[in-house]
């Protein structure tokens, strides 16, 4: 089976289309970054409090809003999370309401505000912030309902937490959910100490301003350094202009991907940065494959112009480019579709990045290489040092002399 065979598409001839396509998307992204959504940063970068709450029943956002208002959290943002049947809500507080002096206050306030019908003297078994394995085990040991050994109670406590976290996904609808998992006597003992609230905290992020700023710096450094390292490597393996062209292409990809996050108003989190770095590597891969072929063909095709060589090289590697991109895209797409809510931003970045990264090696890096070499040949008048193109080079020489 073969999809592409001896293609002969004039890619370089379409460079103005490519340029306008790239410009449209880059400019749209830049405009959105500057004037519209800016760069929507995730809580890890901007700081703040984020609490993921799962309810036993379908949550009523108005009731949540009222409860938070009553607790003085007027600026809290409430968003549904995941599919509606998950009954999950994300409640977020601004950095302003997250003080570094008492970092977890915001989170505790949210939990207390949602705790609508607390039972005095008892603890909420669904409140994983306060009640975990240790608390349950201690309660069982104190009550000693089955006259067992501490190891028995340890096992029971594990069973209780397992039912809550793994079987019921974080929220027990009532203590009777534990029936069968632990002896009835133990269950009755727990009922004396615990009750079940109507929600559980699945996840929480509290990030102070200092860490956020620091992460921003780190992420910028990571992207910057990896671009620089690649530039140096390509300079060493090829020539400086190859490195520059590849880095410009990769920068173009990064810009468009970040632009896509801005346009769709999705938050850039730490894992999205990981995805962007991956796409930097991926797009670089793609460009190198083409450049490698150019390097090889320059030695073989001494008569053709650089534009012809580059065109031929793109065509020769086209089959590989499409196949690899297609397959990688397939894996990333499965991540996007099945990877769950947590990986959503990550796989979104990769889905965009792989499309753009493949496009940019053909439409940005290669034309840039040719344009630069032509420009240098015209300017220096001595023909391109990298890629001697006899016929054309001589013509250029003549032109330059006339100018001088």
């Amino acid at each position: 089976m073969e999809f592409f065979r001896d293609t002969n598409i004039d890619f370089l001839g379409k460079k103005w289309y490519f340029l306008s396509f790239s410009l449209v998307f880059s400019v749209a992204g830049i405009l959105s970054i500057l004037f519209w959504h800016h760069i929507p940063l995730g809580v890890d970068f901007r700081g703040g409090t984020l609490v993921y709450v799962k309810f036993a029943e379908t949550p009523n956002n108005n009731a949540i809003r009222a409860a938070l208002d009553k607790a003085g959290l007027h600026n809290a943002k409430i968003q549904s999370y995941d599919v509606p049947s998950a009954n999950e809500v994300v409640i977020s507080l601004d950095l302003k309401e997250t003080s570094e002096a008492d970092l977890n206050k915001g989170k505790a306030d949210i939990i207390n505000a949602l705790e609508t019908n607390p039972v005095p003297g008892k603890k909420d078994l669904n409140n994983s912030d306060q009640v975990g394995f240790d608390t349950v085990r201690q309660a069982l040991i104190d009550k000693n309902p089955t006259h067992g050994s501490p190891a028995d109670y340890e096992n029971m406590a594990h069973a209780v937490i397992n039912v809550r976290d793994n079987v019921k996904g974080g929220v027990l609808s009532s203590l009777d959910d534990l029936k069968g998992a632990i002896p009835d006597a133990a269950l009755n003992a727990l009922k004396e100490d615990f009750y079940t609230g109507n929600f559980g905290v699945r996840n929480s992020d509290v990030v102070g301003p200092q860490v956020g700023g620091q992460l921003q710096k780190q992420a910028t450094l990571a992207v910057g350094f990896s671009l620089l390292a690649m530039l140096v490597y390509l300079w060493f393996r090829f020539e400086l202009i190859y490195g520059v062209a590849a880095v410009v292409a990769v920068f173009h990809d990064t810009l468009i991907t970040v632009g896509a996050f801005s346009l769709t108003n999705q938050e850039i989190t730490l894992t999205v940065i990981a995805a962007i770095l991956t796409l930097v590597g991926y797009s670089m891969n793609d460009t190198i494959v083409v450049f490698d072929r150019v390097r090889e063909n320059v030695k073989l095709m001494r008569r053709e112009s650089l534009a012809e060589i580059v065109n031929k090289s793109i065509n020769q590697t086209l089959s590989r480019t499409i196949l690899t991109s297609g397959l990688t895209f397939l894996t990333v797409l499965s991540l996007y579709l099945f990877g769950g809510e947590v990986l959503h931003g990550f796989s979104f970045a990769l889905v965009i990045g792989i499309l753009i990264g493949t496009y940019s090696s053909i439409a940005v890096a290669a034309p840039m290489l040719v344009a630069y070499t032509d420009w240098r040949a015209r300017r220096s008048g001595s023909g391109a040092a990298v890629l001697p193109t006899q016929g054309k080079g001589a013509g250029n020489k003549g032109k330059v002399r006339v100018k001088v």
Partner: protein
Amino acid sequence: MQKNLLIKSAVIVGILLVFVYGIFGIPSSFSGEGLKEAVLKNIRLGLDLKGGTYLILQVQVNDAINAETDRAIEILRDEFNKAHITYADISKPDTNHPETVVIKGVPLDSGSQVRDIASSKLQEYTITQGADNSLILTMNPDHLAQLKSDTLDKSIEAIRNRVDALGVSEAPIQKNGMGENQILVQLPGVDDFSRVKGIIQSTARLELREARGEYSTEEEALKAQPGGILPPNMVLLPNKTGDRVFLVSRTSVASGTDIRDAREGTKPDNNEPIVNFYLNPAPAKKFGEFTRQHMEGGPDPARLAIVLDNKVMEAPTIKSEIDDSGDIEGGFTPQSAKDLAMLLRAGSLPASLHYLSTRTVGASLGADSIRAGVKAAIAGMAAVLLFMLIYYRGAGINADVALILNLVILLGFMGFFGATLTLPGIAGVILTVGMGVDSNVLIFERIREELRHGKAPAAAVDQGFNRAWTTILDTHVTTIVSAIILFFVGTGPVSGFGLTLIFGLLANLFTAVFVSRVIFDAVLNRKARGEALSI
């Protein structure tokens, strides 16, 4: 040729076995449960998959610097008194730079004497001339850097001891960021975080100091002093409830680091919980000397202040000479006495901490993420394997074997290095699959090209591998470079992603180039000359 192939195949099988061992170890049983348990023992799951708490803590290194310069000031005062040098004031004017001490009002002709004192007694400091006839004593930069890094190391050590004592197993505790004196603590499986939080953060700095008076307010304390100012070597500290103030010495006779052991106990007369502590031999000697000096009826009677985190817990009179033990009372509950004894045993923090970030992942979310991640990985992998089979037929098997082997080696690597698999790490695995396929496609397309040019299968395979190799090397080096940067600059999950990618790419260099080549050679070997290659 035949023999060569055999050796190569043996090498591949050997490596395969080694990495399978890396994943499973020796499982207790070969049932599904037994294997699952074996895998989880070797490949650790990150907190984002297993649930738990990440904390980023800021170490207030200035605390430790302050303590050190306080000692320097004490030495200066002593030496100045001995040498009869007059001075107006010794202070640290800039709270952000506690490493700088300013000495004011020293007569001009004593300047060289002060320098002599500094160079003999305070070698870690440099003296310079300041404005208005003052002298500036600054801690040397190397010593300052050393002190900061020691403080950080000691804090990590203390936190590790505390977390161990709480029974949290294998909690990674490490430096965070780039020189910001931060600590990253990961507590797997800990989600009832409230108690842990207090235990990690409490400084538990115990000091035994000399107490010279007890007052109800600071004003009263000041009024009681001659001239209304405190003696230079004394400070006022509140008691635990904040309703009394004590006049205590600025420096301590013994402190937390001098403690050999601490146990919770009860007071014999009323069964009130207390904490007993025992001192190491050298400080015990110093403490014995101190108590003989200051006991009732001794040469200079004074009280003993037991100070915890800058609060006076109690200030008993010294009845007789004590050498190596004492007890702390101060309204403990059995639990708080137990916690304090644990903290004293574990070692005090050299500086206070505060929380910069806390992230808690519930175990339920982690379990969901694993399910989703594994599902995505399997779906992606299956699609790729199937496609390769259809598109490259015979050679597709080759690519599929290489891909599966790649995965085995990647996971085996993680097992051997005790690396942690995070959620972005699973994504890294999926990406490795994508990149592994790329190498195969590069090679196969090249072989097809050579075949089209009319080369014989053996020659085409040879050329295909040779030509593709440079490209594969270049692409892998660049990606590994960015993965390494990710590993070092990233934190937590991202760093795990970088690590997975590095392992995956290394494994891929081996499987896509070496293993795949051996399979090709084996196939070619069995074919008659001139028979077509299934690719």
